Each structure stands twice: as structure tokens, then as C-alpha cells.
């Protein structure tokens, strides 16, 4: 464990640097040190752990685009190897920032540090969720669903036309590239091509595993639980319920409206952690707190948010929380682009090399080894 850890907030209105939490409580810091840490964090990459030395202190800092102005910093002891603890420190920084911005009074920094609790980097479904939280990325995905393969320069021009403003294609492309939905490669000397490798679908599924496990424990409870889930997905007519298989152009399709909501829930780190803990079975707040290593007050607060989003449901008399719906974002092979590649090749819109490479990439991603 580092010698000391502290959370700093830069209040740009008036106060400047405010150390909101510190451990040990006797830790003193001066304005110069805080300024230099902030300078380093501004120079470095966000969402990664930074390290530098100042006034004989070995300091790490973690900041994130998601929480502007916040930093979690640690002072390492002389024998700590930064490379060995880098990922743990980033994970605890991620968790502390998420907790701080949720409710800074609801957790003890010391307890979090001593428990070694961390928030891991984004899971695959969280990375996919990021696509729909960046409007230009979602727009690019739609374009790629039609084009399949496209020159980066052409795509950039198209996006500029859509947004009617200067746009950084790389930035818009980042969530798509990080989640493996598209791949960008230089073919030949100058032609940078964008290939669609995966398509994505966001929807709510019934919490099947949780219901099965609940049935094993208490059939009576499971029956009541299933009643609520059925009410949501397939209520008695004339109500239509939730049917994600309806096409997006169907006015009753829940997909378009709901997709952004689902993405927000999955991308929000604490909400995701708590919802993931409920995928297996209904739990009490203290069980969730134990399973997720999050303070009970934070768990209760997040559950209320999930309840309003029709993700969680509370069984007061049983002191249990369960998933009403299980938000998912999944990728699938975009088979529909195969004729598009063929057509583009025949009309010489793309070179044989580009078509071959696209098929190779699709095979690498989706092919099965026999």
C-alpha cells in the first residue's frame, strides 16, 4: 500500500486545489506540489496512471476524462515498484473517483485502500456502450453499416458534412476502434481504409440466470419475481411490452430510444458493477456491498437510480434487490456487408487487396478453428 493517498479537486470557480480526502489524515501538502501534479496530469494521458518524482517524493496520479478536475494521487515508498502496482493503483484511482463523485462522504478512503478494492478497466460491453455515448461515433457506425468498407478520407469528409463543423475523425473513431467494431489499416502507400468488423446491438434481456437461481432458493419468491419480469416483457394485451426483435423502423421498436439509456447504464462504472452483481441472483444491499466492495450507502443510492431506469426492482418484504431487466450490448458478425464488399469490388470502388483484407479481418474475428 502506498505511503499516502489523497484526492484533489480543482475548483475553477474560486477555491483552486482542494484536497477532499487524505490518508493518513496527518498528511500535509503544499500548493506547489499540487500544482506540479496537475501540470503533469494535463500533459499526460487521461485514464492512465501517471508517475513522476518531485521534492524527493515518488508520486502517482490518476485522472479521467469522465471526472474533469479530479485526481487521485499516491505517494509511494522507496521500495515500491511502480510497474508492479501500476494496474492496481489505476484501478483504485478509478474506484475512488467514481465513489467521490457519487457521494464523497459515503466511503472511507482508508477502508478502500486497505481492502485493495479496485475498479477494473472497461469490459467489452462497456467499451461497446461508449460508442453510443459519443454521437459522432454512433453516426460513423451507421455509415459503416451501409458502406462496410470505406476510405478514411472519404469518411472524414462525410462526417464533416453531417456535423457541419470541424471534426477529428480519429477521436470519433476511437470508441469504434477500441471495441474492435472497426479496424483502420493503411493499404498501399496512402490509402487508409476503415473496415467494419462487428455490428452492435443494445437491448434488455430477461434476467434468466437470476430467475433460475432464485427458483432454486425459493420457488415462492421466484414466482413473484417472474411475475414482474413477465409484466415488463410480455404484459397481457393490448399492452405490447418490450420486444427488442422489432426492426428499428417499427414505431413500437424499443431499440432506438432505449439504446442510449442502456449505454449510459453500462458505461457508468458503479451502476455497471452493481448490475453485474445482480445478474446471477437477487441480493440484499449488504450482500451487494460485500460482493462489490462498495459502501452500502452508495449501493442503495445506485440501486434507486437503476430502479427508476427499470433495471432493478426492490422486494421490500424479502429485503432483496433483483434485476427486472438485464441491459446488454453485444456484438455480432455483420454478414449483410458481404454483398456490399462484392458490389464495391465489381464496381472498382475498392481494390481486390482491400476486399481480400476485409475478408481476412472478418475471418480473424469470427472464423472458427476446426
Amino acid at each position, binding site marked *: 500500500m502506498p505511503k499516502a493517498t489523497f484526492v484533489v479537486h480543482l475548483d*475553477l*470557480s*474560486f*477555491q*483552486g486545489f482542494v484536497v477532499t480526502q487524505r490518508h493518513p489524515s496527518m498528511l500535509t501538502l503544499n500548493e506547489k506540489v499540487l*500544482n506540479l501534479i496537475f*501540470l503533469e496530469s*494535463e500533459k499526460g494521458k487521461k485514464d492512465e496512471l501517471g508517475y513522476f518524482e518531485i521534492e524527493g517524493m515518488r508520486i502517482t496520479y490518476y485522472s479521467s476524462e469522465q471526472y474533469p478536475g479530479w485526481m487521485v494521487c499516491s505517494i509511494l515508498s522507496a521500495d515500491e515498484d511502480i510497474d508492479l502496482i501500476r494496474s492496481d493503483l489505476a484501478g483504485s484511482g478509478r474506484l475512488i473517483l467514481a465513489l467521490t463523485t457519487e457521494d464523497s462522504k459515503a466511503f472511507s478512503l482508508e477502508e478502500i485502500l486497505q481492502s485493495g478494492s479496485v475498479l477494473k478497466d472497461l469490459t467489452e460491453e462497456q467499451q461497446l456502450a461508449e460508442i453510443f455515448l459519443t454521437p459522432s461515433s454512433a453516426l460513423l457506425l451507421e455509415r459503416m453499416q451501409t458502406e462496410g468498407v470505406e476510405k478514411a478520407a472519404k469518411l472524414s469528409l462525410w462526417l464533416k458534412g453531417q456535423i457541419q463543423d470541424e471534426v477529428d475523425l480519429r477521436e470519433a473513431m476511437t470508441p469504434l476502434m477500441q471495441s474492435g467494431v472497426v479496424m483502420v489499416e493503411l493499404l498501399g502507400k496512402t490509402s487508409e481504409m476503415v473496415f467494419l468488423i462487428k455490428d452492435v446491438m443494445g437491448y434488455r434481456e430477461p434476467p434468466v440466470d437470476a430467475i433460475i437461481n432464485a427458483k432454486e432458493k425459493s420457488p415462492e419468491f421466484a414466482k413473484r419475481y417472474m411475475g414482474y419480469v413477465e409484466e415488463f416483457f410480455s404484459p397481457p394485451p393490448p399492452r405490447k411490452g418490450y420486444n427488442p426483435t422489432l426492426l428499428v423502423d417499427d414505431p413500437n421498436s424499443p431499440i432506438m430510444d432505449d439504446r442510449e439509456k442502456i449505454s449510459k447504464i453500462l458505461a457508468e462504472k458503479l451502476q455497471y458493477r452493481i448490475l453485474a452483481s445482480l445478474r446471477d441472483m437477487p441480493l440484499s444491499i449488504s450482500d451487494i456491498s460485500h460482493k462489490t466492495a462498495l459502501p452500502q450507502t452508495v449501493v442503495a443510492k445506485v440501486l434507486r437510480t437503476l430502479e427508476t431506469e427499470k433495471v432493478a426492482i426492490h422486494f421490500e418484504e424479502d429485503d432483496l434487490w433483483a434485476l427486472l431487466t438485464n441491459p446488454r450490448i453485444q456484438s455480432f458478425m455483420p454478414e449483410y456487408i458481404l454483398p456490399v464488399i462484392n458490389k464495391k469490388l465489381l464496381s472498382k470502388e475498392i481494390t481486390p487487396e482491400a476486399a481480400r483484407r476485409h475478408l481476412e479481418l472478418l475471418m480473424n474475428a469470427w472464423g472458427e478453428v476446426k
Partner: protein
Amino acid sequence: MIRGVYVLGEQENMIYSKEYARSDTRANLVEFLVNLTHYLNTVDLEEKTEFMNVAGSRIFYSQREPFTFMFVADKADDVTQIEEKMGQLSDSFMRDYSNLALANQSLAGFDEKVDEIAVTMVKVAILGFAGVGKTTTLHLLRGETLPLIHDPTIGVSIKKLPEEVENANIVLWDLAGQSRFSILWAKMIANAQVVVIVTDSTLENVLRSKKLVSLVKDEVPDAKVIGIANKQDLPTALTPERVGQILGVPTYELVAIDISYRDRLIQIIRRAILEGKAEAKSA
């Protein structure tokens, strides 16, 4: 400090809002306030002011039929003081503006009233290249003895003016002028109501400082910008008029090491605050 003032109507519609600090989450906040108003309409607050903590802030609310008044303030703020201000604001609104609001008329004059009640702090950023006398200007404003050795500022140094100006506390943000800190300037001047660009009055420095004026106008277009032609006691100094012509902003002479300039400088800042308010009003 009060960071935002909101008045909502009977239909939970936003009648008036004003933020004193930029926020990335404004849309979420407004949605939250509308929902909170919806809830408050189901309870009776008996014209009392109550508050709740939300993330790092404290939201104060009070109701006078059919209006809901809200302040977003800091947890550290004095509750009694904020409650007092809430009382002043709701009294003033009910007395002079409620009929206008009910008739969907413009609330002319209410904005100034809000400023008068809610503005308790003004951020003044001091910007300029290295060695032009920013920190000396800060010491002068605070009436402090000048240090004998030049100690370059690291990042930003934040200090309060000992006295209030226009009933508000002045918080001075003295930004480091060394080029390695230049990546912080755009960020650190956010929310400043007044930006003071200090030059050493040499032609070279004043020409370079034009970039700072552009930066300020891009980043904080609502801020009042003033130039300072410092080191007027040196033979190489351009006149304040010439410095002002080059910078394109009102510019004032200064010898920051001369304490007799203190009152004059405070008056300049006072005027800048008032002019800033007047410009905001006319806009």
C-alpha cells in the same frame, strides 16, 4: 458560494436560471431540479428554506406559491447566510416579478437583483508572461511587503483581496508565466469575471501579450479584460496608451513596486467588475 440560481413555475417550467460557474453537467442538473420541483409540489415547505446534498453540492430550495426557488451552493457554505439570501430573493421576486412571470412577461431588472443577492465572490485572473510583475501586482493588491528574492510562481497561486469590492470577495488567481505552464492558462481562467493582462511595457512583451488577449477572448468571452502597463518607471516603457492600442483592451499604467498605486489598481478592478455587469446586462 452560490453557483446557480433557479426559479421554476407552477408547471415545473424554468422561469429563470443563472449560473456563476461553468458546469459540464448542466442538463442533468436542470433535469434533477425539475424533478425535485415536481416532488416539492406534493409537500408543504411552509415557505421555509430546506436543503439537500447532491454529489459535491448543496441544493437549497424554498417555495412561494406557485413558484419554487433554488440555489446550488457548496456544502461548505454557511447555511444561515444562504437561507437569508434565499429569503431576500424570494421576497424580491414575489414583490416585484411574480405578476410578470405569471403573465409570461420578461423579468426586466431581476437579473441585477439576483447578482446583488447571490454574487458573493468574483474571480480575477492575472495573466502575463514570465517576469512582468504578476505576483508583484498580487502583493500590491493585497497590501503585502514585496519579497526580496524573485520566486517564480508554480502553476497558480490563489489569494483573496483583504477587502470586499462591491459587496463581493475578490479571489485573485495569479497564473505562472513561464512557458511550461502555458498549457494551464486556458483552463485556469475559466469562470473569471475579470482578467488582468500584465505586461512589462516593453514593445516585445506587449506584442507577445496580444496572444493572451486572443486566448482570453476565446476562452472567457464574457470576462472583462484589462491591460496593465507595468514597470512604467523603466526608460524602455511604452506609454499605457500605446500598450492599450497594441493590446486592443483598456490599459492602465502601473509601477507594481510602488504602494501608492494600490488604491488606483483596486478602483480599476472595481470599475471592471461594474462594467462587466453592465455589459452582461446590455447583452
